[in-house]
């Protein structure tokens, strides 16, 4: 390792052409991040042919910049319209959207972008210093470890919602059941499809989210006859500086989010669970957990820091192990192959200029990215000033286009509409939506990892306790799962009043 490698990298990344390429990539990426349904994978696939005329380092800078842009951009529609532009910005809607409704969209956006940048920076520094070592750690994660992580994500989140715990349970169960529809990869059998072709691909998380959150929210807000208080948002950059003054307060949330994000980012699809877990921990450790979900800035900081940290960390297995951490990385991998590079453990020694150029470009790309999106804050916030009767149908159209774009499938648009109505009814009847969404994300991953583990151990559950890493994570997960039950018991044992001062459940 060492400094000279990184300096070599910077000498490659900081050329006028490569900086220009980064700006182009980030602009396109932000657009992709904003539009639900369009993911980084689409953008990368489209730009790929363009990269054949470039040196591989410029090419990968273009593609990764697009990816950073998408990571930043995902927060914009989450905050402004409650529509997560990307899966990992679902948790950002929980507090970001209420903030926007209260006329604080500018603050929420600034906090989101800044957190993204901090999370990214944290991951990049770790990659710079420890990339090969981290790759070794990633290798030690087999199915039992992954299942333990899914369990931890889940158990950190349950018991956090308010209202009727039975209704939370229904949401969770429904999410898991929907996640089970389609092919069971462990046995290759079709579940709950009843021979209907359209059910075979199962329920896509992003379709459900566009419906539940996007359409559901539109229906709720027209019912309440509310319009956005966009006018309260100033049209200048002062809001950025004002928000920056508040943000140091959340230093601990930043660090926690960055750690969670980086650690989870190794695993394919890690950014989304990471954002949920970070949100859950922020709420658990907060002095005011009751403010979460109603417009707490910390509720934006936590998921965004983790999501971007995970997004950056996902690049690591791609370059060091040759396995993609996300669909976007998968398409990039295809790119590496076409450029004549062999992704995998040898890349560091065989193509140091490429690898270190890429790592250096992570710094430059994210710095350029955060400056660009922050400069756009007043503009994004001003979107809310668009008259209501134009904005409403526009959001519906964007949702429909997005839902179709995910799999180029019309049935998905219908699913989205149905999820929209479900979202509206559930919200009115106090069924929480977040557990449903989380269960839908984790259901598939968790069940596969669990069953792979059990096949490996021939049906014995001890596999989660005999392997050291899995054991630590599983115990932590069980601790959080039973904390709501254990806390009163523990307090009684010590002669304290049965209600804890910091409500971990409600």
């Amino acid at each position: 390792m060492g400094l000279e490698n990184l300096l070599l990298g910077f000498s490659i990344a900081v050329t006028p052409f490569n900086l220009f390429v980064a700006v182009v990539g980030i602009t396109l990426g932000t657009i992709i991040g904003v539009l639900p349904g369009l993911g980084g994978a689409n953008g990368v696939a489209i730009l790929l042919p363009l990269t054949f005329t470039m040196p591989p380092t410029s090419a990968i800078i273009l593609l990764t910049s697009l990816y950073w842009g998408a990571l930043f951009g995902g927060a914009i529609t989450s905050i402004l319209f409650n529509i997560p532009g990307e899966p990992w910005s679902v948790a950002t809607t929980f507090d970001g959207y209420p903030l926007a409704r209260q006329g604080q969209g500018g603050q929420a956006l600034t906090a989101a972008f800044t957190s993204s940048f901090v999370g990214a920076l944290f991951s990049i520094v770790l990659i710079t210093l420890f990339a090969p070592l981290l790759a070794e750690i990633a290798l030690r994660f087999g199915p039992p470890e992954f299942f333990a992580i899914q369990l931890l994500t889940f158990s950190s989140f349950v018991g956090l919602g308010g209202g009727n715990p039975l209704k939370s349970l229904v949401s969770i169960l429904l999410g898991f059941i929907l996640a089970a529809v389609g092919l069971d990869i462990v046995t290759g059998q079709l579940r709950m499809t009843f021979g209907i072709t359209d059910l075979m691909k199962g329920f896509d998380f992003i379709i459900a989210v566009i419906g539940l959150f996007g359409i559901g929210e539109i229906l709720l807000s027209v019912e309440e006859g509310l319009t956005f208080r966009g006018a309260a948002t100033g049209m200048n950059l002062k809001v950025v500086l004002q928000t920056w003054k508040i943000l140091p307060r959340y230093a601990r949330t930043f660090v926690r989010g960055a750690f969670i994000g980086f650690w989870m980012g190794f695993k394919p699809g890690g950014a989304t669970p990471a954002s949920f877990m970070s949100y859950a921990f922020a709420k658990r450790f907060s002095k005011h957990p009751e403010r979460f979900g109603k417009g707490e800035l910390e509720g934006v900081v936590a998921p965004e820091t983790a999501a971007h940290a995970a997004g950056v960390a996902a690049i690591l297995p791609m370059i060091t192990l040759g396995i993609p951490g996300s669909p976007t990385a998968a398409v990039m991998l295809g790119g590496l192959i076409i450029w004549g590079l062999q992704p995998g453990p040898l890349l560091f020694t065989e193509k140091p200029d490429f690898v270190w150029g890429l790592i250096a470009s992570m710094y430059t790309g994210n710095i350029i990215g955060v400056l660009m999106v922050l400069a756009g804050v007043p503009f994004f916030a001003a979107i809310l000033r668009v008259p209501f009767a134009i904005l409403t149908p526009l959001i519906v159209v964007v949702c429909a286009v997005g839902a179709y774009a995910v799999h180029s499938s019309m049935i998905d648009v219908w699913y989205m509409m149905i999820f929209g109505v479900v979202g509206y009814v559930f919200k009115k009847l106090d069924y929480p939506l977040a557990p449903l969404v989380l269960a839908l994300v984790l259901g598939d991953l968790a069940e596969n990892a669990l069953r792979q583990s059990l096949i490996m151990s021939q049906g014995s559950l001890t596999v989660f306790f005999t392997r050291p890493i899995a054991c630590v994570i599983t115990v932590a997960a069980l601790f959080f799962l039973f904390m709501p039950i254990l806390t009163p018991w523990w307090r009684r044992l010590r002669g304290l009043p049965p209600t804890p001062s910091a409500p971990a459940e409600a």
Partner: protein
Amino acid sequence: MRQISTSVLLLMLLAGTLLATSAAAWEPTKPIEFVVPAGTGGGADQMARLIHGIAEKHKLSPRPIIVVNKSGGAGAEGFLHVKGKKGDAHTIIITLSNLFTTPLHTGVPFSWKDLTPVTRLALDQFILWVNAETPYKTAKEYIAAVKEKNGTMKMGGTGSAQEDQILTIMLEQAQGVKFIYVPFKGGGEVCVNLVGKHVDSTVNNPAECVSHWKANRVRPLAVFDTERIPVGEWKGIPTIKEALGSDIHYLMLRGIFGAPDMPKEAVDWYVGFLKKVTETPDWKKYMEDNALKPAFTSGAEYVKWVEENEQLHRDLMAKGGLLKQ
């Protein structure tokens, strides 16, 4: 000098005739939808995106190609999508073995006969891999160890009742051993789990493990083919027959089909287009790096090969108890 100019003239003539014929023949008039019945990052997806890349780079298609992944239901989603596009001249699909295995195992109603065969591009090899830190230098030593451990060694593979499991069962039956088969979502994931020692062996395609091999993390023991792979360092890997004495061979189709009842002229255009793709240096390098067997063919020969292979899969899956009950 004279010779050169003659050949240039000849080339120009040839190019002229080619241009003239292609101008009269069918050409795509809108973007081509290229369906991948598998997820992003796998072998089929890589190849589709390579074809897309080569077509763009060498300007081989007048209209853009749009790669669409439809991996639901072990690829059933993609196949049924194309099956529904009767007579469409702008939809093609890349196939892997799930063309045969998915309908046989899940009973989803489609068959290659619903589609229009276009070309066979290549055949993919399978190799028996173990972790490089294990003491097994040959397949014989490894199989002996599997026997000794009495059914507790783990074989990792992609999906369930698909090619990797078929191969595992073939190996089990030929050698009288027993593995614990652990299914994963994709080939890259399988090989990483081998490197991480979460499984004991895999039957990965060369492309999925090659980088770990070069980094000395995994060791190839035998090729599941009748002859050795004739390129590069792959030559050093014995066939399964050389290594174990039993002749287990299996190759996976990497081919292209079109929508049902695709017009004849359109099929001809795709055959010509793909022929040009396979003649580019980029394609040849990819084939060599990933130890793919070049096997370009089309027309009746292709159909005959597919027919034979469908029967082969039916037999193999019946033997392994993988057919839908």
